[in-house]
């Protein structure tokens, strides 16, 4: 199969939706008994309305024990760094949308390093670089350069930017990029067209095949997900995300995968659509994916409230952002008007780390090392020098 777009031709949205509603108790009990090892059949059962109504506690218990076995009592922490809010797309749910009259900003080298300095002081070693989609202001060369200047300072750099071609991804990997988050937003092409009105992002197929290009480029990790609230049928959307994950994992078997389950948050200047995914649904979603895929990294963002984040913690979460600013330069200056969406959990990283400790989790700031990337780097000698610096620090 050349790509996921072709693969999906074998699936039908309304059939999948109907199948979810036809699930019986036996299907769910089978899925629980074999701990989700029945593949998509089990995911279908676990995402069904019936599973949510009658088996939520069983799902939660199993999800918790699988997560504990695989990931232990440790939660990885990262921070997003917004490099630019320039965007040529018009999407009706996003603060960066081209028609929004907000000041636009793209960080310079000095500004990037200033943000980096603050994030380092806060304790972060894993960062996620985020931009809007503007080939002119934030093309692949800008991104590669940003990664190169940040690489000596952070153990792990991921990006969440516009979909690129395979060669561009290879260029970013060489610069030191570890992972790419590329959320499909919705797998329902009709809803997708309704919310993505102008710009390159209107191309559903190009976006859908992005993880294939990433797999071909050999990236370490691919982040998948839907933005819940774009389609009324969240269960089918989630099922498609599971089908995507299963397809990718079998095809690009050396890559690891992460997923997150964002729900639409308010942002500058728009009346927000109602989210049809309540907290109970979110718990089901999270547990269903953990049981379906024991190794999946599951990220929980500051979009959700502090209380909910704490309650979701034992149910399958492996990674959290903390103290996030969703505007370029946000750590240096507090200019909230440029933000992509407003966050709900605004506790500082330090407070989040303490909360984790109090709940019996080890907050993990570093779970990668630049030595892992060194063989593919373009500037090996420079990195080696940096390492001798490490040794001096160690000796002290």
């Amino acid at each position, binding site marked *: 199969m050349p790509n996921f777009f072709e693969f999906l031709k074998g699936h039908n949205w309304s059939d999948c939706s109907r199948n979810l509603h036809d699930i019986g108790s036996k299907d769910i009990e089978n899925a629980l008994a074999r701990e989700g090892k029945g593949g998509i059949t089990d995911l279908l059962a676990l995402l069904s309305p019936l599973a949510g109504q009658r088996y939520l506690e069983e799902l939660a218990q199993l999800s918790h024990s699988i997560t*504990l*076995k*695989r*990931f*232990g*009592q*440790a939660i990885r922490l990262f921070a997003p760094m917004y490099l630019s809010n320039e965007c040529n797309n018009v999407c009706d749910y996003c603060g960066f949308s081209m028609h929004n009259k907000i000041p636009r900003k793209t960080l310079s080298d000095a500004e990037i390093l200033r943000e980096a300095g603050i994030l380092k002081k806060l*304790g972060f*070693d894993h960062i996620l670089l985020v931009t809007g989609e503007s080939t002119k202001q934030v093309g692949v060369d800008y991104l590669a350069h940003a990664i190169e200047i940040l690489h000596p300072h952070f*153990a792990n750099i991921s990006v969440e930017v516009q979909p690129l071609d395979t060669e561009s991804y290879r260029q970013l990997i060489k610069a030191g990029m570890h992972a790419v988050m590329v959320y499909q937003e919705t797998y329902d092409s009709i809803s997708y067209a309704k919310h993505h009105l102008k710009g390159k992002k209107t191309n559903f197929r190009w976006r859908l095949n992005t993880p294939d290009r990433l797999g071909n480029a050999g990236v370490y990790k691919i982040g998948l997900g839907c933005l819940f609230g774009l389609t009324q049928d969240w269960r089918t959307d989630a099922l498609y995300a599971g089908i995507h994950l299963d397809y990718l*994992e079998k095809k690009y*078997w*050396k*890559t*690891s995968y992460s997923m997150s389950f964002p729900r639409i948050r308010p942002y500058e200047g728009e009346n927000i659509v109602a989210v049809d995914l309540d907290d109970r649904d979110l718990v089901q979603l999270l547990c269903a994916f953990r049981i379906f895929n024991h*190794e999946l990294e599951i990220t929980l963002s500051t979009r959700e409230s502090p209380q909910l984040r704490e309650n979701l913690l034992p149910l399958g979460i492996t990674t959290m952002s903390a103290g996030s600013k969703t505007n370029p330069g946000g750590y240096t200056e507090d200019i909230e008007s440029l933000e992509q969406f407003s966050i709900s959990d605004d506790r500082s990283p330090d407070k989040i780390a303490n909360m984790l*400790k109090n709940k*019996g*989790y*080890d907050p*993990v*700031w*570093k*779970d*990668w*090392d630049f*030595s*892992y990337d*060194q*063989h593919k780097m373009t500037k090996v000698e420079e990195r080696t020098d940096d*390492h*001798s610096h*490490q*040794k001096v*620090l*160690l000796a*002290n």
Partner: protein
Amino acid sequence: MITDPLEIAGESFHSRLFVGTGKFSSGEILQETIENCQSELVTVAMKRANPKGLEDSILDFLQHKTVRLLPNTSGVRDAKEAIFVAQMAREALETNWLKLEIHPDPKYLMPDPVETLLATEELAKQGFIVLPYCHADPVLCKRLEDAGASAVMPLGSPIGSNRGLDSREFLKIIIEQSNLPVVIDAGIGCPSHAAEALEIGASAVLVNTALAVANDPPVMGIAFRKAVEAGRLAFLSGLGSKHENAQATSPLTGFLN
């Protein structure tokens, strides 16, 4: 108590229980667990280690103990990456001991036999004390021995699975044939699994998940220490052979006496 040290690369260890440091809820719990285990060899993932002096609950503790630090290359996908990480670990953590782990598959973390063999050969040439994590493959273990490994670390079952010695029959062949210490790594989910490993003649076991995710890791540390000691003593004292059927009370060859 019998004096029965384990020798690896000319160094003696009293404890036959190695401990992995991932998945613990805090550095303090890890510390207490290791003390209770009396383990002398503790692995640390290079990707988790933070030798820059920033907050690192694992290294802070380990660098002040008498335990030997065994950096591992967990996270690398091929021999080339492993060699880079090994060199970095040697410099940053100041040890030439290395647990070589190459798993290109992030799902089940299955070790790549081809890349592991290549990396072992190269790293041994570069002066590393290489302890490769590998499948319970008897031929591969002999090849690793030829390539210069200082011990072999075949898996009991997939990492983190707690399934015990699913590879039992092959482990027995490896133990029978090996000139190197055989450390059973991965899948040991409870003290009885560890005891069994030592009973069948393994030199040591490496345990992580079963300790880290126990309700009370320090107490589980004591349980594992005792199980490993019991298993070793059972092996040394000579286990009776097992029989599928009861022994006939009227043997067919009795007339020969």
